[in-house]
Structure formats: C-alpha cells, structure tokens
C-alpha cells in the first residue's frame, strides 16, 4: 500500500530530514511512526500525500510512484488519502458541516448526499449533533474528531495522522486513538505519527522508529486496544434518528 525505497529528503539549507528510509506498509495495517521531535516524522508523512518530493529514492502509494505524478494529478492522489493534523486545521468561520464536506463539494456531490455523508462521518466520531456548531464552540477533542470526520468522509484508503493527540489531554488522546483503531478495523490503512511512547506500548501494533532521519527500528509490539468509549450521539438523537437527520439538513441549509 505504502512503499518507501531508499528515500532521502534534503532541504535546501542542507539539512537531511530523511536518510535512505525503506519500509513497506500493507493494505489494512495500523502503523505507528515515532521518534523524537525533528526525527523526520512530518517530512515522511508529507512525502506520502505529495506535499513534498523526495531528494532521492522512490515512494509508491497504492502502486503509484508519487514523486513522478504530474502536478495536475496530485489532487486525485490526495482524494484517496485522509490527513489529520495536530492543530486540527479547521476553518473557524465555517460550521462543522461545512468543514467536513469540502471533499464532497469538490467532487460535485449534491446537497442531499453531502448531508448524508456528513451525518455518517460525524456519527462515526460521535458528533452528529454538532453539525451547526462552529469549531471554536467545540472542545479540543471535539475539534480533532471533526478533523477526523473530514478525513474519513470519502472513505479514504489511507489515513495519515501527524501527532493527532499532541494538543489533547490523556483522556481525549485515548478517545481519538480509539477512533483511529475503529477506522482501521473497517479496512483503512492507518499511519499515525506520535512521540507518545506510553500510548504505543499500551496499544501495540507495528512501530516504525525514526532517529535523525534514519529508520532505526521496525517492530511489531504486543498490546491491547484501549477501552471502548461511548461515542454514540446523545440519547435524544439515538431515540429519534429523524431529529438527527433534520439537524443535518438544517446545518446544510
């Protein structure tokens, strides 16, 4: 699914962010990418969704060599990859509904389908009842869940997350991690960058460790899933799906 072959990334100042990194992530895997700050995690992720190009080496995503994709084809690659950032990157002047439906709008999806997709994506993260809210009215954890819903709305093949719990307290971090694990269970390949060793140790899964741009460790850790959190919508919505749909439609209007 994601293959790196001797990938090196050097920035114009001469700094080497990645040094001959090679690995292969299979479809449906859940992989942690870890390392200290400045180890090259963000640089590596940026290469996958073609925000940057490698100085040397090859990167295949879903069988396509991303470094040789012509610029006009990059958007089509990105539509298959969901990306979540530490700082959420939500647009404060847009509602939750507007924030999560960027991709459907780009694809020309009609409004009714947009409402349906938004409702489904937000329901998965337990926020179907906040469609009309603006990001600043939400807690940090809720904002990150909206960002995840945005990344998930078109059922991407790959979900990339760059320190998604970096700005959250431990309880909220578990909540977000739980979401990523659930997304992975549905078949989406997940690559999650974090420097939270405790989280990695507890959850297990495959771990790629970077140090000063070099891949120093690729190991499979045993672990257990965090306790399931209750992310179902409020009771009123659960008992009355029509009300939830109406809320979604109001938000869309």
């Amino acid at each position, binding site marked *: 699914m994601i293959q790196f072959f001797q990938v090196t990334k050097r920035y114009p100042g001469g700094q080497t962010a990645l040094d001959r990194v090679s690995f292969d992530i299979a479809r449906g895997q859940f992989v942690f990418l870890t390392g200290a700050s400045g180890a090259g995690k*963000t640089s590596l992720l*940026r290469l996958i*969704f073609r925000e940057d190009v490698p100085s040397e080496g090859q990167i295949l995503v879903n069988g396509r060599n991303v470094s040789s994709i012509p610029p*006009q084809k990059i*958007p*089509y*690659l*990105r*539509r298959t990859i969901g*990306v979540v950032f530490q*700082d959420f*990157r939500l*647009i404060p002047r*847009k509602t939750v509904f507007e924030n999560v439906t*960027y*991709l459907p*709008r*780009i*694809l*020309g999806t009609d409004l009714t389908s947009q409402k349906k997709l938004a409702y489904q994506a937000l329901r998965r993260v337990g926020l179907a009842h906040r469609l009309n809210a603006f990001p600043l009215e939400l807690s940090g954890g809720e904002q990150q869940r909206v960002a995840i819903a*945005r990344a998930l709305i078109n059922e991407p093949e790959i979900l990339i997350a760059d320190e998604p719990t970096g700005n959250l307290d431990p309880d909220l971090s578990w909540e977000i991690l739980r979401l990523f694990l659930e997304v992975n269970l549905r078949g989406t390949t997940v690559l999650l960058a974090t420097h939270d060793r405790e989280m990695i140790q507890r959850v297990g899964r495959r771990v790629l460790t970077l140090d000063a741009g070099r891949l120093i460790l690729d190991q499979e850790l045993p672990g257990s899933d965090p306790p399931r959190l209750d992310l179902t919508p409020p009771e009123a919505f659960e008992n009355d799906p029509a009300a939830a749909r109406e809320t979604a439609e109001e938000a869309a209007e």
Partner: protein
Amino acid sequence: MSFFQALRAFFREAAVNLARGWKVSLVAILTITVSLFVGGAFLLVSGNLLASVERWRGEMRIVVYLQPAMAEPVVRQLAAELGRGPGIAAVQVVSAEAARQRFQEAFPSLSDLVEGMGDEPLPPSLEIALADPARRTPELRAFLAGWRQRPEVSMVDDDREWLGQLETVVAVLRAVGLALGVGLLVAAVFTIGSVIRLTAYLHSDEISILRLVGATEFYIRGPFYAEGFLQGLIGGLLATGILWSGSAFLRFRSPDALLTQLFAAEFLTPGEAAALVGLGAAAGLFGAIASLRRERLTVTEEQAAE
C-alpha cells in the same frame, strides 16, 4: 463535477466572499465604477456631439453674400453663373427684402433694428445647396475661392468650415476620454488584482485545506476569478446606471437646454451600454487572473502552524 456545477459553486462562493469582505471589495468596485463612468461619460458626450454634427451636416449650406443695393437682374445672372459650379445642386436667391423678413421672423424682439432705415439693411445673398453636403471637393474649394475675390461678393460663408473645427474638437474629446478611461481602467485592474490577492491571503487557511483534500487548481482559483468578475460587473453596472440617471435627469429637468441637446439628447445605444458593463466584468476577471498568475495560493507548514 461538471463545468456548470463548478461555475455555480464559484459564483456562490464569490458572492459570499463579496458580502463578507464588502469594505475591501467596495474600493475595487468604486475604482472600476469611476473609470468606466469617466470613459462612458466621454463616450456619451462625444456621441451626442457627433450626432449633432451629423444633423447639422445635413442642414448646412454655403451662402454667398453680395454687395448691398445690387440690381435684381445682376443677382439672377450671378445665381445662374454660380449654379454651374462643380458639385452645386441648386442656388436660391435671397433678396435683401427677404433677408430682412427672415431676420424679423427669427428675432422678433430685434425687428426694430432693421425697421425704418430707408434702404434695405441686409445684403442680398445666394444660398448654395450641394449635391453632397458633406463633401468639399478641391474643385469646389477653388471655385469658391475665386468667388471670394469677385467685386460683387462681400463674403462667402461656408458652414462646413466651423463644422470641421467642431468635428476636430469632438475627435480630441473622444481621444482624451479614451486615454483617461483606459488609464483609469488599468488602475482599476490593479486595484481589483490587489483586492483579490488580499482575499486569497485571507483565505489561505481554507486554500490549504482544499489542496489537502484534493481540490484542483481550477477549483481553488475559480471563486477568486468569479469574485473579480463580479466586482467588475457591479462596477460596470453602477457606472452605466449613474450615466443613465444623469442623462435622464438632464432630459427631464431641462429638455430644451442647449447643454442637454448637445450632451444628453440620446443615451448610449444598448450595445454600447452592454459593452461598458462587459468591459468592467472583463477588467475584473483580468485583474483576478493577472494577480493570481504567479501565486501558488497556499501556505507553508510554518505559516499554517502559526
């Protein structure tokens, strides 16, 4: 997404942006309004002046004024001789008595001036109608120059001479208007370009998200182009509306005034008005395209993190 779906989405987004940032947009719209108003005003005035010139051209004559107290047979002989000149269709004799009557009819309040003076105060004259009133062939000019030298003739008055000067004035007026309008339009294009660039900067966070989720360049830039187009269109409509209102006001307030007749007798033709509005829209679109031509319309990771 089809092209028309995309266009609809662009204009919806642009309209929202215009409404949200109306203060900044107003500057661009007013700049283009002023430039198109100036250009349009010159077009209107010169168009009306030219129409007047055309009207006068059809009515203009050449008049040969003879010496006073000339015997009628001599006058008729001169008229017959004049009628054989090149390009002359007809010659009408206006006797001294007929000239006085005409004066009294045209200026009743001044009729006393020409009464009781004994001899006829005004000279007889010969009014020449040309086969082609707009043309003065070299042969005709030479012929008239010869008549100016004759002892029986006191003056040869050709309307064409001052009409020609008026045409030159109108041409200069039109050129000045065009130059001024173009200059102001260029300024308007730059203003719209700056406003669009500022808008793009203000929306850089959203642009980075659009890019991240897979929007094409066309989709990202489209709303900004639509916004420039709308600003220009509104400016063009405002300029045309103000011109129309001003022209209609003049016609309503003082329909017979010389100024109204000269400058506002007719409004621009529908084609000219549409061209003025279209020019505004085109200028806005061009300003937007030019301003974003070299922009990557995105933010760096560092900017996004700020």
